[in-house]
């Protein structure tokens, strides 16, 4: 049986993309898989009794070494802010390419804590900062210093000791450009070094609380239980900075989604499912319920989604337990069709993710296809004709062509770069100034404008001739030729409409990172947790691949 890939016009809608969940394809899981054989080491741990100072952690294999350099700083409570306008953080980090010498650490000590206003070098690969969850951090230190383990109930409400507020890579602030390292086999997957940074930061947070608790009470203190450590992750506060990325990297976006869609198609095409695979699938669905019931958020929007997800998963489990037989042919196809008919988008995508769990042989080759050499697709094929371009647009953007951008609500917002922080922002074009400096992120509107222009242009004109009179549409002409080859490269939705939920765009990207427990704090930013339940560095050589569904908080 041949199953078609799902239609981009359904999958690339923001509500669907905003319902994606982590899976075996997610970058933090593929990072762990890639680096499980590497040698992990704490190379330096020079903190004072309050936990301020420097530390270095590394992963090493043969002659290659990646080192996380950490700087823990004293800041005042009133200086602690997750907002991008902050200028001080509890800790700052960089991933250094190789082993940093003393001179490197001195240089980095001056630059890394400054983050966006500091300067890194081609020897640094990623940059980040994090703030303590003060409530949890203080409670853990108090408990450990008294010789007690912390209150699991309290820990489960937050899930981490620190949360990062940005993780930068690929040439930002002087960091190494991607092209310098792109041929390294171990990082042949998106965001792998960003994932390494976050993973090592997690270990630093455990070592720091143990160290501070010990110095607070050397005689009585105990170390944080390894099982508790394992069930703590690293939080992250994410705002709109992430949203334009998925618009600005169309072939990369395509490769992420196409990998997911190809995985689903191949799983639906499995004629006979082995018992061990169906059992693993069901076990993961059941175990994953803890991730849903421990998913805390004050957001009404997310609470409704969680409640609907939980009800739908329960309904699905009843269906599986009562009336489903995995011995039939193409059982996963039947499950998928049932899901589409009977459950919400959040649930469909949740189960799709879990379907991948038994199938390393399908997933691992796809992981290797999730990067993109974007430069290869940048040039516009200008010898092609207007008629061809119009046909591409009509075929690839059918719903977008139906949007009426003359209506105020469809043209309500504009994206811009803020002057003070050089970060992307969204504003109401009818209430705020600056729409004349709009970023080219209103793809749907501009595609529609391009189509209107093509309708009144001669079919036989070459694209070169068309562009000489329509330079303002060049950016979308480029995109249309990209979407011709890469069906999942474009969000098939309006990114400037009144009803836009920007967090859907963030959620899409974060799900591919492998984030759990999306906690929207408004429609424009959210908190998440990464690596919660993941093996600790010393456990990497032999870890349970389904750790993500076995969080015991």
């Amino acid at each position: 049986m041949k199953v078609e890939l799902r239609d981009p016009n359904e999958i690339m809608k923001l509500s669907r993309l905003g319902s994606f969940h982590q899976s075996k394809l997610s970058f933090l899981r593929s990072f762990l898989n890639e680096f499980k054989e590497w040698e992990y080491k704490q190379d330096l741990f020079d903190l004072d009794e309050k936990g301020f100072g420097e530390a270095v952690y590394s992963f090493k294999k043969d002659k290659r070494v990646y080192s996380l350099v950490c700087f823990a700083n004293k800041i005042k409570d009133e200086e602690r802010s997750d907002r991008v306008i902050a200028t001080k953080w509890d800790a700052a980090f960089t991933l250094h390419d190789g082993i940093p010498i003393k001179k490197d650490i001195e240089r980095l000590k001056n630059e890394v804590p400054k983050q966006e206003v500091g300067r890194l070098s081609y020897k640094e690969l990623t940059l980040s900062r994090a703030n303590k969850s003060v409530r949890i951090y203080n409670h853990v230190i108090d408990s450990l210093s008294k010789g007690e383990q912390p209150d699991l109930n309290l820990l489960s409400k937050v899930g981490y000791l620190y949360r990062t507020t940005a993780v930068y890579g690929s040439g930002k602030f002087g960091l190494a450009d991607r092209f310098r390292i792109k041929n390294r086999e171990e990082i042949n997957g998106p965001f792998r070094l960003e994932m390494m940074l976050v993973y090592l930061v997690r270990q630093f947070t455990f070592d720091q609380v143990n160290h501070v608790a010990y110095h607070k009470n050397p005689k009585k203190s105990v170390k944080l239980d390894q099982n508790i450590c394992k069930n703590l992750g690293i939080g992250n506060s994410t705002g709109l900075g992430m949203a334009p990325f998925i618009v600005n990297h169309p072939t990369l976006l395509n490769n992420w989604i196409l990998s997911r869609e190809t995985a689903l198609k191949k799983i639906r095409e499995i004629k006979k499912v082995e018992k061990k695979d169906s059992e693993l699938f069901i076990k993961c669905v059941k175990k994953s319920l803890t991730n849903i019931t421990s998913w805390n958020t004050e957001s009404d929007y997310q609470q409704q989604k969680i409640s609907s997800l939980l009800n739908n998963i329960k309904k699905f489990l009843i269906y599986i337990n009562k009336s489903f037989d995995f011995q039939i042919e193409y059982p996963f196809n039947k499950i998928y069709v049932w899901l589409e008919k009977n459950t919400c988008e959040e649930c469909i995508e949740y189960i799709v993710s879990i379907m991948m769990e038994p199938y390393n042989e399908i997933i691992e080759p796809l992981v290797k296809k999730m990067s993109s050499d974007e430069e290869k697709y940048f040039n516009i094929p200008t010898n092609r004709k207007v008629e061809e371009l119009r046909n591409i647009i009509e075929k690839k953007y059918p719903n977008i062509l139906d949007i009426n951008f003359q209506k105020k609500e469809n043209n309500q917002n504009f994206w811009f770069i803020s002057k003070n922080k050089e970060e992307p922002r969204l504003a109401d074009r009818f209430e705020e100034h600056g729409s004349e400096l709009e970023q080219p992120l209103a793809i749907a509107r501009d595609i529609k404008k391009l189509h209107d222009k093509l309708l009144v242009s001669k079919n036989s004109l070459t694209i070169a001739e068309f562009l000489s009179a329509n330079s303002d549409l060049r950016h979308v002409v480029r995109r249309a030729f990209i979407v011709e080859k890469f069906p999942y490269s474009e969000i098939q939705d309006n990114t400037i409409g009144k009803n836009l939920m920007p967090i859907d765009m963030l959620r899409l990207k974060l799900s591919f990172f492998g984030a759990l427990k999306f906690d929207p704090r408004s429609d424009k930013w959210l908190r998440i947790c990464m690596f919660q339940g993941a093996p600790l560095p010393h456990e990497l050589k032999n870890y349970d691949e389904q750790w993500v569904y076995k969080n015991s908080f």
Partner: protein
Amino acid sequence: MKSLSEIETTAKRASKAAGYSWGVSEEIGKSIRLLELFSLPGIKYLNDYFNERKNNKFENLKLISEKNISAHYPFCPIILGVSFLDQVNKLEDIKNIEFKNVAYPLLLIPFLSRSSEIIGKKINVRLNENQIRLNLNVNISSDLINDEFPKNAANFVVNFFENKDNFTEEEWESLYKISEDTFVEESDSLKQAGAGAGLTDND
């Protein structure tokens, strides 16, 4: 040191601010990145050009022909570059393309370099008295590398190289003969056991 990613982003944004469309600004970002990657002063010349644009006029050449002479003002190297890139499939049929009076000709070079890759042919540029060779966007060589690039090219001639060898047949034969010293003479039995042995080729 600025990363190429920073260079591309800043050049793109500055170009938009200078009045180019987003699509053209994307092209400029890529081009300046390329110049800087090849250690050519892209940022410096883009800066100088944008500053000069504030007070002076430049001509936008949108349709390129064999001889291109500016009517009143120097040609804008960016619009000229984008036009060249877009029209290169047609232009390659013309052996020599001449431009008279091009402003900041260095800024035109990366567009020609990318064009060279698109058509799969090397391009030679005569910039006043100097030569620049664009090798399929893999590198840019020039006798101007250590000198200041001119701010204006009175004469700028583009010439496409046909894809042919860069050496004589005799030179090739001579080198090939040397390479034969790595071959081993096959014995008769090995010849008989080789691929296809024992079959007719008409089966």
